[in-house]
């Protein structure tokens, strides 16, 4: 892969989509955090197009990074949008582990079992 593919400048005006905020209301969101929409709740009527798309994408479980990739928005920006939708009860954090906590030994053993089955 060429260097140009991985590293480039571009002008996303993120603050417009997040009403000027750079940080989410919760700090437990990571790129691999699993999200799912709350059953049957459409996005709020005041939602932006990005928020509506986000809720629609999360009809099934996806990680934050996947949502960001499908929306073509930076992960940090999507974290702000996701945080708001969790606060308003439209999205749930499916993988509810605490930030800064590593997976336990039991989880790693299961990961190993899975990899050995490839």
């Amino acid at each position, binding site marked *: 892969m060429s260097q140009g593919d991985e590293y480039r400048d571009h002008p996303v005006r993120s603050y417009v989509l997040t009403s000027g905020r750079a940080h989410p209301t919760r700090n437990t969101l990571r790129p691999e955090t*699993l999200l799912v929409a709350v059953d049957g709740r459409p996005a709020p009527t005041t939602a932006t197009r990005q928020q509506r798309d986000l809720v629609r994408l999360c009809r099934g479980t996806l990680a934050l990074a996947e949502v960001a990739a499908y929306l073509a928005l930076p992960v940090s920006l999507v974290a702000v949008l996701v945080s708001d939708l969790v606060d308003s009860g439209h999205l749930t954090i499916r993988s509810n582990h605490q930030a800064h906590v590593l997976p336990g030994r039991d989880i790693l053993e299961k990961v*190993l079992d899975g990899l050995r089955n490839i």
Partner: protein
Amino acid sequence: MPGQHLAPSVARSVKVLVVGAFGVGKTTLIGSVSEIEPLRTEEQITTAAVGVDPGLPEKQTTTVALDFGRLTISQEIALYMFGTPGQRRFWDLWAGLADGAVGALVMVDTRSIEASFEVLDQLELRTKMPFAVVINQFPDSPQYPVERIRAALDLLPTTPIVRCDARNRTSSAQALIQLVEHALTFPAFQKAPA
């Protein structure tokens, strides 16, 4: 796109990083293991401009692409593999990604081994993360003995060094197995589940 959802039973995600210099095969390895086409997302990072007047803390915002893949590993667990450039100037990005990661695969191309020095330095200086070195075999790669590579990269005797064909699923999975086995020897992973 909606067909790419995880099974409803999956309620846990585990993350590994795949780091290395540009063009070393990070996305190839991720793609060979991933159950979805590798996805790309972008992250904005602020890098302090180097060489400018220190009185003027000029910062630059740049966008770095992250390629990642996913593998449902059991009914409850999904493994995410994030490829990221490991150089110092990307550290802000990397630091956020490193949080909670099981460890890193450091991909090395033996045709330009010195390209890995900065990545390894960053890992060792800034994290306590377990890592395994993956020698991605290109057809014209010189075949150095593992111990010569260990010496050249100044690695601990315990750091796994895995030869791998990143295009091959089993071979790439083997590299991940070595990393997770290595991680299990670290005190941070000895704790009982929370």
